[in-house]
């Protein structure tokens, strides 16, 4: 009888020990500080990267963020996918990656449905200009055409509420599309549905 009870307890314990719990135990943080102006707690989980996308030239990295009482999914995009023959002007640099206020991040879930998040604030990405063959950057030296390549970088935060967190934790994701001004950035998790969103969401501590 005692043995049966023990097995039951162990089974229940194992069932309640979800994958997200195991991640939470091993969470590491990129930034763990306070906002210098407001004093609010600022916690960003370590960036988790999607599959490297040579074809689209877009890298996507995810972080689970807590700022005060606000929770976010943060997406860092790094792109190498513009080429010009002449060196870009400053206006071209400033417009290379523009993510507007309320920009949409569409997440394609494993069941074929789409879940949308909307950016809190717009971002103008930082863009630098690379000349093929003359720079020491590994990523772009992949047989790109001769000329200039834009390397753009932006971090966008998408607010999360309880419903959004529950929905995103509920199933795996396959692809994401960030809707920016003039272009979209497609970020794939690879050939199989991925749990990377759950991984970073598990690192957002519960609200008090």
């Amino acid at each position, binding site marked *: 009888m005692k043995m049966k009870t023990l097995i039951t307890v162990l089974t229940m314990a194992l069932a309640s020990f979800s994958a997200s719990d195991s991640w939470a135990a091993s969470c590491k943080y990129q930034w763990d500080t306070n906002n210098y102006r407001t004093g609010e707690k600022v916690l960003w989980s370590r960036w988790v990267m999607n599959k490297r996308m040579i074809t689209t030239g877009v890298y996507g*990295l995810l972080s689970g963020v807590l700022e005060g009482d606000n929770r976010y999914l943060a997406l860092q995009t790094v792109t190498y996918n513009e080429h010009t023959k002449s060196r870009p002007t400053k206006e071209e640099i400033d417009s290379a990656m523009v993510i507007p206020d309320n920009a949409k991040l569409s997440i394609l879930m494993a069941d074929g449905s789409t879940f949308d998040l909307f950016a809190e604030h717009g971002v103008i990405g930082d863009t630098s200009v690379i000349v093929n063959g003359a720079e020491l950057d590994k990523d772009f030296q992949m047989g790109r055409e001769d000329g200039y390549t834009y390397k753009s970088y932006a971090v966008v935060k998408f607010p999360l509420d309880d419903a959004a967190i529950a929905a995103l934790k509920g199933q795996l994701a396959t692809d994401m599309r960030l809707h920016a001004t003039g272009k979209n950035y497609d970020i794939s998790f690879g050939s199989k549905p991925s749990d990377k969103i759950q991984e970073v969401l598990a690192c957002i501590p519960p609200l008090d």
Partner: protein
Amino acid sequence: MKTLPILILIAAALGNSGLAYAAKSKCEFSQNTVDDSTGERTIQTEFDTVTTAMSTGESEANGAISVLMTGGQKYLAIKFDATEHFRLPDEFAGHEDPNWDPAYRDFLDDLLGDTAIFPVGSTARLDLDDQTSVTLARDEHLRVRTHYAEPGQSVSSRDGKTESAKKLVGFLAKMASTDVDVNSDASRHYTVATKAVLKYPIDAEAEDLLRRAVVTGIRIEARDRYYAMTWRSTSRQIVGWSDKSYLKIRDAMHCIDEAAGR
């Protein structure tokens, strides 16, 4: 005897930790003068390097900072040394000696003229570790002299950098990719070196933040481009803002206060 390697390991570990950086016990100043006619005092701390020694060449800048106070106004001074690459336009690529072509001279004039103008209102954005930033804006116009090297040459040979510095850059280029013949590709590009000392007035909010915040990088705006001293978490950059550089800004502020008798 066995303890020696352990001590070395501990010392190396400390070198990468916050424990390795100690606040300056002695402040050093490049200027500490009083204007005879106005009685205005000018104090400036010595420049302190804030970036690692290596550069990707991707409009990255190696830099140093100092704090200047004159007439009661504090400034953040940034000294940087950036190298950029420009592709030889196709129209001149086939010329044996394009120097005879007026359009080619125009190209060179544009190349040099555009690179280093810092107008009033151009900014230095200091990124903070709370993922916000503080922006300083210039209150004066500045054009600085640039140096360039034609394809096949290097700026370092023109402006007196050492051979070892050139070899280091060449070595790093080869490290970055074994597939690309860097020397061959580089021979098609102009290299422009820009050295500038820029000063930005510090307002009360920025002063407060610079005393407390962890600065993770600086992005400098020029009229036609940006220069970055940063360390991005994409782990794709080998140049960067040194982890403890924010402490150098705090030190410089502290030294100015001390010299000003506060």
